[in-house]
């Protein structure tokens, strides 16, 4: 589904990703871990098409298409979802209106009939229940006045609404208490299917207790330097990242 080859990315002339390779297949759950500043969030932003980042080398093939040639919204319409680390507030725009517009546009792109107002509201209600979202969304502006946990839950809610094929969840677990974490993880697990894939970017192993990954990658210095299964995450939890750094230096 997704194949990243030799990806180099820089911001304002400074290289953040330097030769990253990653392959994600349908039905898989990947976890990307690693210390701060190693380029995890950059990777997610580049996948979504954030223009603040310059791709200087490499390619990203998504469902057989060159992802880098697509606009931000077309990537989204093709099923790429980014769960933001810091969800953006949009004053005055109600969540209902926001989702309605997004779904209308995506359906139009895919050549589907627009949902009727009734069908949309019903659909939204279902998805709200899935993520245990109790807030009345119709009169709340996008992310405005949401607590940190609510914002993250709102990201998962939107993911549920848009039914993406490839989701990158950027630090969705940070700042969540254990109950919220459980709800978020439950949502992600519920949305899992043989046709879609999820990549979770996280600092902590604890999320992986709930979302069991098929692969765990360690990022360091703009590259994926180690790949393993869930046990790698546990090892990292116990021993930190130093041993990986040492291993790398030894190789050099």
């Amino acid at each position, binding site marked *: 589904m997704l194949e990243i080859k030799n990806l180099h990315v820089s911001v304002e002339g400074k290289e953040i990703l330097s030769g990253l390779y990653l392959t994600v297949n349908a039905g898989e759950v990947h976890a990307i871990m690693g210390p701060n500043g190693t380029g995890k969030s950059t990777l997610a932003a580049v996948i979504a098409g954030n*223009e603040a980042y310059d791709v200087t080398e490499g390619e990203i093939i998504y469902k057989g298409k060159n992802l880098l040639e697509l606009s931000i*919204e077309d990537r*989204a*319409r093709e099923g790429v979802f980014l769960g933001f680390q810091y969800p953006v507030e*949009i*004053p*005055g725009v109600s969540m209902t209106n926001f989702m309605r517009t*997004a*779904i209308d546009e995506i359906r139009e792109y895919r050549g589907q009939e627009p949902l009727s107002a009734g069908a949309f509201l019903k659909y939204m209600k279902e998805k709200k229940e899935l993520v245990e979202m109790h807030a009345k969304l119709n009169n709340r502006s996008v992310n405005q006045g949401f607590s940190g946990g609510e914002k993250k839950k709102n990201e998962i809610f*939107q993911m549920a609404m848009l039914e993406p094929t490839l989701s990158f969840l950027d630090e969705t677990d940070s700042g969540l208490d254990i109950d919220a974490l459980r709800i978020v993880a439950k949502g992600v697990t519920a949305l899992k299917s043989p046709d879609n894939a999820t990549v979770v970017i996280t600092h902590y192993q604890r999320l992986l207790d709930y979302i069991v990954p098929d692969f765990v990658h360690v990022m360091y210095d703009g590259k994926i330097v180690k790949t393993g299964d869930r046990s790698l995450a546990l090892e990292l939890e116990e021993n930190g990242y130093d041993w990986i750094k040492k291993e790398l230096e030894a190789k050099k």
Partner: protein
Amino acid sequence: MAKSEDIIIDEVTSSDYKYGFTTDIESEDIGKGLSEDVVRIISAKKNEPEWLLEFRLKAYRKWLTMEQPDWAHLKISPIDFQEIIFYSAPKKKKELESLDEVDPELLDTFNKLGISLEEQKVLSGVAVDAVIDSVSVKTTFTDVLEKKGIIFMSFSEAVQKYPDLIKKYMGSVVPPSDNYFAALNSAVFSDGSFCYIPKGVRSPVELSTYFRINAANTGQFERTLIVADEGAYVSYLEGCTAPQRDENQLHAAIVEIVTHDNAEVKYSTVQNWYPGDKNGVGGIFNFVTKRGLCKGHHSKISWTQVETGSAVTWKYPSCILKGDHSVGEFYSVAVTNNYQQADTGSKMIHIGKNTKSTIISKGISAGKSHNSYRGLVKVSANADNSRNFSQCDSLLLGSECGAHTFPYIDTANETTVVEHEATTSKISDEQLFYCQQRGLSPEKSIGLIVNGYAKEVLNQLPMEFAAEAQKLLAISLENSVG
């Protein structure tokens, strides 16, 4: 990101004015130019009483001594008053008895504007007074209103039927000498609407006036006078459009509102005069004096405006809060695009005790336009415990436009609290990215964000108007939102 945004802005700003058609209605005018004779002719045509002619002449003589104000942040090409036709009216064949007798071309015009008089009458229960060029062509719903004792008719008709009321209130809020354009209007006004809500009556329907300039080289000078007697309430809507023409046309109107004890008037405007083309050619000069007097205690006047049209807007709907505990409100969204210029805002004059005012202004500039907020909050020494809160935000779409804020705050009372806040910003890249990541096109994203930004004001509009305003916002910025 900057580059792609510019392209988007360019696309969004290149939409066309949807109301630019002209209607082939036979009209009669009095020829170009302004003189004392022209004032007399207008008065005679309307069969006015002597005192009204005197009022006009006095205003005209005053106007001759005044100069066009130049303090606003506007560049206005000189106006040649001798090139303007000061009176033009759709030619009447005879007195109209019912809608069926209205010129079909005229009805068609209103249909195009989306205000089928017939439909409005039946469906929305809004009483409409339509003023085309200078003359009121039809007022609907009169019988329902009459039962409640509400007077709602064209200004000219009211002069004949209720001269005492007109004489009492006309010019009491905006005296002819108030400013250059008010003096001009007072001399040559052709028609407008008059509305009187008697004691204790809440108007069961929303009253609405639709203004349209149709004829070429014509100025429109209408007057609206609304009087709400003790405990009365009315919600009043005003809409305006004009055909697409290459020359600038002058619109200099006056709106006066008086509220007595416990009365409330809510005045909403969706102003969509022709803004000129993409290169700044043509468009309406919109120089309007709107002022309300909260005369009685606990009275309230609320102005809501959505300004998307006109080449130049010069307009400051104001409230004089004279009655104790009276309340003044001003909610405004002003959009400028291409070469449009707007200098608009509000004046809140606190005179009575415990008076309160709120100003919420949202300016949106795109293209090469300039959008200024200019406002005055004045608290006199006797206005104990008065409060004002003002918030004036500006949003810039594109790097060639300007957004300016000129608030004046003058206070002379130690128990008053005045707060003014303002911010200027552009749509953040983060917001745009977030929306696009959810699959929205850049244009849709901007439309959504702008409407969200203006929501506080749009919420103040009556339902059926709000939808229209929202559409209008999207259209004005269509292919411009960036």
